[in-house]
């Protein structure tokens, strides 16, 4: 098959297949049937991504002219990262879409939902396969637009089950409770805050480098031309985009309130698109920048140090915040932020630890994606079944909901790094990478990582036990049905076994297996010790998910350490301060310039002038034109003569 057609189908099938439901938005009959077509569109993408994976040659670049005069083209690449990530994205989106057929039944605006859901998927696929930074940015903006649409999907704010935060919980002047419309706004405003500097960074690269293709830019030369300060500024601009989209501290708030969207959206947002996009782009850039070969470039080390610690801090912050959460989805959201932090940290560690660290970050992303998507889908089913977004459900409930129960056990244990389950091998390699930083950075990264891993393991166990074993009895139980939902997450979680198999068989990951060995040089390895610690934390939290003595600390954590104040209090205060400043001092000038005097006066004057010429009398026109012609000719002659 022609590659051109493959890529066209890959990107456009989801979007095109969701157009009919948009057009039929008024007809209830059709909007009930057409979601199947939308899901089929994503299925086409799955098939195409598999075709790219199995049939197209690796590391091949495909260029299609877009605006070649300006060096802006549709450049796609089938490197290691995109081949895997493309399949991951498409498959996860497909499973979630199947689940969504059940989950979104009877919703009040299915057209809106399916269009943006499919646009979301397509945008991420563009980000994944694109080699050109400009094309990547197009997909990137698609993600932003679609996330706004989806997070604020239930825009009527009429059902408390869609809110985030406990009603009436007030801290100082703020009520820590957010409706969907506010959630959507928080997402788009945070992301735009980062996108603009990122766009400037892309523009700067466009000016400085002869090409915008990530794989072809001479990064070392580029950094040397702009010097240490230039490199740092360029990266800071770029990182603003990545950190805001991936919800790293201090930009994490939007992610927590993004849980106001439908659960399917949360699942997609957290596993394979959006937040993963930031980390993925960083991994991709690092893959081609190869910072471990650029130790001579000034300034680069500071940047990688910054990313390392922002990542680790976000990791710990997310895990701690999650430990205090009592809302199903918000707990998972906090844990996602933590995982994404570890991906950033690991990729940044490549500056000292080399290529392996990038590979670790990428594989952690893959494992996390499937595990976290499964957990989100389960929690969506639980919200339907119990009519509550808070953790609840005892063993009796768990027995009635056997499939989600088992899926949760598998997803959590496989994700937290308990030996010998899937994430353990990746985490082991991550431990080894952080250990490697001892000489250059010290022990702090390793300590932060181990702490994060232990707390993270605890919160996953907490999710399991408070939903299925030791939680309160739900007020409402509706345990029947939901076949497609079960199918969705069962399929999703089963991929974790496949990944385990891949880790053991694929060539690139044999170092992971080596890192996870029980004993090395006669002593028990660090990785194994951390694995055991994670296991103990899991068991402990399973047995005792809530410690009443620590309630105050837990509340502090569940208030997300008062970080909402940055978004909802400090930033608006700054905005108000500026607007007051403008109102008190600049307003008269601005008003005068734009609204009352200068510009309107100029417009009015010029417009009157223009119209006063048109009297309709030919003689007047001839006078004007001949006069002007003579005048200009005289000026020209005099000018030339002088």
């Amino acid at each position, binding site marked *: 098959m022609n590659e051109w057609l493959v890529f066209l189908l890959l990107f456009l099938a989801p979007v095109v297949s969701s157009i009919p439901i948009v057009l039929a938005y008024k007809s209830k009959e059709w909007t009930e049937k057409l979601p199947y077509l939308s899901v089929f569109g994503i299925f086409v993408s799955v098939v195409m991504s598999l075709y790219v994976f199995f049939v197209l040659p690796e590391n091949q670049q495909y260029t299609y*002219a*877009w*605006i*070649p*005069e*300006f060096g802006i083209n549709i450049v796609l690449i089938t490197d290691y990262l995109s081949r895997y990530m493309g399949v991951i994205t498409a498959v996860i989106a497909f499973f979630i879409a199947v689940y969504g057929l059940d989950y979104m039944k009877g919703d009040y605006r299915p057209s809106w939902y399916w269009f943006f859901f499919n646009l979301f998927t397509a945008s991420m696929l563009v980000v994944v396969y694109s080699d050109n930074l400009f094309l990547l940015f197009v997909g990137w903006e698609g993600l932003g637009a679609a996330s706004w649409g989806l997070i604020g999907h239930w825009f009527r704010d009429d059902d408390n089950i869609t809110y985030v935060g406990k009603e009436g919980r007030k801290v100082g002047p703020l009520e820590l409770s957010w409706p969907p419309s506010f959630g959507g706004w928080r997402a788009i405003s945070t992301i735009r805050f980062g996108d603009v500097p990122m766009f400037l960074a892309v523009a700067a690269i466009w000016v400085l480098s002869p090409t915008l293709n990530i794989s072809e830019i001479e990064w070392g030369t580029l950094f040397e031309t702009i010097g240490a300060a230039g490199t740092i500024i360029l990266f800071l601009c770029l990182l603003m985009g990545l950190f805001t989209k991936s919800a790293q501290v201090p930009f994490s708030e939007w992610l927590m309130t993004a849980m106001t969207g439908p659960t399917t959206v949360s699942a997609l947002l957290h596993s394979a698109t959006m937040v993963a996009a930031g980390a993925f782009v960083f991994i991709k850039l690092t893959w081609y920048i190869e910072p471990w070969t650029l130790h001579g470039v000034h300034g680069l080390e500071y940047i990688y140090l910054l990313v390392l610690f922002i990542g680790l801090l976000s990791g710990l912050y997310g895990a701690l915040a999650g430990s205090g959460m009592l809302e199903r989805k918000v707990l998972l959201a906090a844990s996602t932020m933590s995982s994404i932090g570890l991906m950033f940290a690991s990729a940044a560690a490549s500056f000292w630890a080399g290529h392996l660290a990038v590979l670790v970050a990428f594989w952690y992303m893959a494992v996390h994606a499937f595990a976290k998507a499964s957990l989100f889908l389960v929690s969506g089913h639980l919200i339907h079944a119990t009519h509550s977004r808070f953790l609840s459900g005892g063993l009796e409930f768990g027995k009635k909901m056997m499939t989600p129960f088992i899926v949760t056990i598998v997803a959590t244990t496989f994700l937290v790094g308990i030996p010998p389950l899937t994430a353990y091998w990746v985490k082991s390699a991550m431990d080894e990478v952080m250990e490697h930083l001892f000489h250059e950075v010290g022990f702090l990264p390793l300590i932060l990582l181990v702490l994060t891993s232990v707390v993270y393991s605890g919160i996953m166990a907490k999710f399991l036990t408070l939903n299925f074993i030791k939680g309160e009895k739900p007020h409402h139980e509706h345990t029947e049905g939901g076949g497609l939902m079960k199918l969705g997450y069962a399929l999703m979680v089963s991929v974790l076994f496949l990944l385990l198999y891949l880790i053991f068989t694929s060539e690139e990951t044999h170092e992971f297996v080596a890192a996870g060995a029980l004993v090395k040089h006669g002593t028990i390895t660090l990785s194994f010790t951390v694995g055991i610690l994670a296991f103990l934390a899991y068991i402990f939290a399973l047995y005792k998910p809530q410690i009443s003595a620590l309630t105050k600390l837990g509340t502090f954590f569940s208030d997300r350490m008062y970080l909402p104040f940055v978004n909802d209090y400090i930033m608006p205060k700054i905005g108000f301060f500026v607007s007051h400043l403008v109102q008190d001092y600049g307003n008269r000038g601005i008003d005068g310039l734009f609204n009352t005097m200068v510009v309107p006066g100029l*417009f009015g004057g*010029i*417009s009157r002038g*223009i*119209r006063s*010429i*048109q009297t*309709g009398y*030919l003689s007047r*026109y*001839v006078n*004007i*034109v*001949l006069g*002007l*012609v003579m005048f*200009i*000719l005289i000026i*020209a*002659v005099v*000018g*030339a*003569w002088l």
Partner: protein
Amino acid sequence: MELPMLIMVGALLILTLCSIFSFKYRDLGFYGAIVAIILASSSITLSAPHLIYYTAFVFAIGIINLASLKVIKSVIQGVDYGLVGLMVLVTLYIFTTQNLAMILAAFVLVSVPTYILVMVREGGANVEVGIKYITFMVLATVLFLIGAITLAYTKNAFNGLLYILGYVMLVLGLSIEVGVAPLHEWVPDVFTSADPIPMSIIASLAKIVPFIIALRILISTSNSLTVSITLFTAVLAAISMFTGNIGALTSKEHARILAYSTVANMGYVLACAVVIIKPEFFYFALTGALLMLFANAMGKIGFFNAIKGEGAFSPTMYLLAFSFIGLPPLMGFWGKLFILFSLVKAEYIWLVALMVLNSAISIPYYLRLARELGVGWKANLTNFICVAVVIITLITFLPDWFFRGMEVIAQALSIAI
């Protein structure tokens, strides 16, 4: 005589004969013009394959103009098709010759048919409009021709004063001909009082040739003085943009808005003429100018036909408005983008800033136009014409192929003098 030339002559003959006999069989004029255009297009494509995209666009504009003439029953029906056909033939031919005399003849040939067309209306002749229009066209033609010949003279016997004089005369002639402010006085009056259908032809097809000729002459005769004198053109372009956009913004009548919009658009295209000081980037300017002229032609055809038909299908009106405003991926966007890019290369940054500012000023009135002219779908000729022009406006979704074509054309622009 070579085969392509023979075909061209054949086309002219068919056009003339059909126009003559159309007094007896009215439809003959229409079919004759179409056959002539097809023949001429194939002749151009045979002799100069690199002109194929240009030819295709002109062909499309010509056919749509002819089709739109079907709406009115003029007293000279039959002959009017012949006149439009002649203009199309000349527009097709303009890139293929290197001969100054032929080029100047082409200028006159594309101008004179509009003298008659402008008077066309149902059941009579618009004499008052005709007089207004012809007065200025004659003045424009005289200035343009004297300017062109003076420039040609200085090419062989250099004289700074004469060069400046010739340059200014040529640009002034062009300005009056296409309606660049401050010499645009005839435009609002003629656009509002003439019939919309002939106006759609004058505002679309008739604008292409004068610009191409002016650019070709200016680029062939440029010398060390050009760098300083282009400032004159730039100032004229800037005045035209502001006059056009502010005039349109504060007008109510649809035809008057379109008149001022023409003034503004001609300002954008005229700005391309400053890029002759950077010949290595001139192909960007040429691409921009032609795309802008085509986008302007499409938009004017659509809007004028909508005025005549008392409204057209709403989405088509909005798409044409977006094209004028310059939203990607419509043709108007690419036109502006390439013009801006070439101006950046020519280091006319202030003109770039003014042009962007003017694009912003133009947004409200184009949207107003689209809202007021947009109605529901009806299967009539007006709507078919509007759909056709919208499709053409979307054809440069990926503009690269057109740009490549222009790159080749730009290499052979100069005239043998």
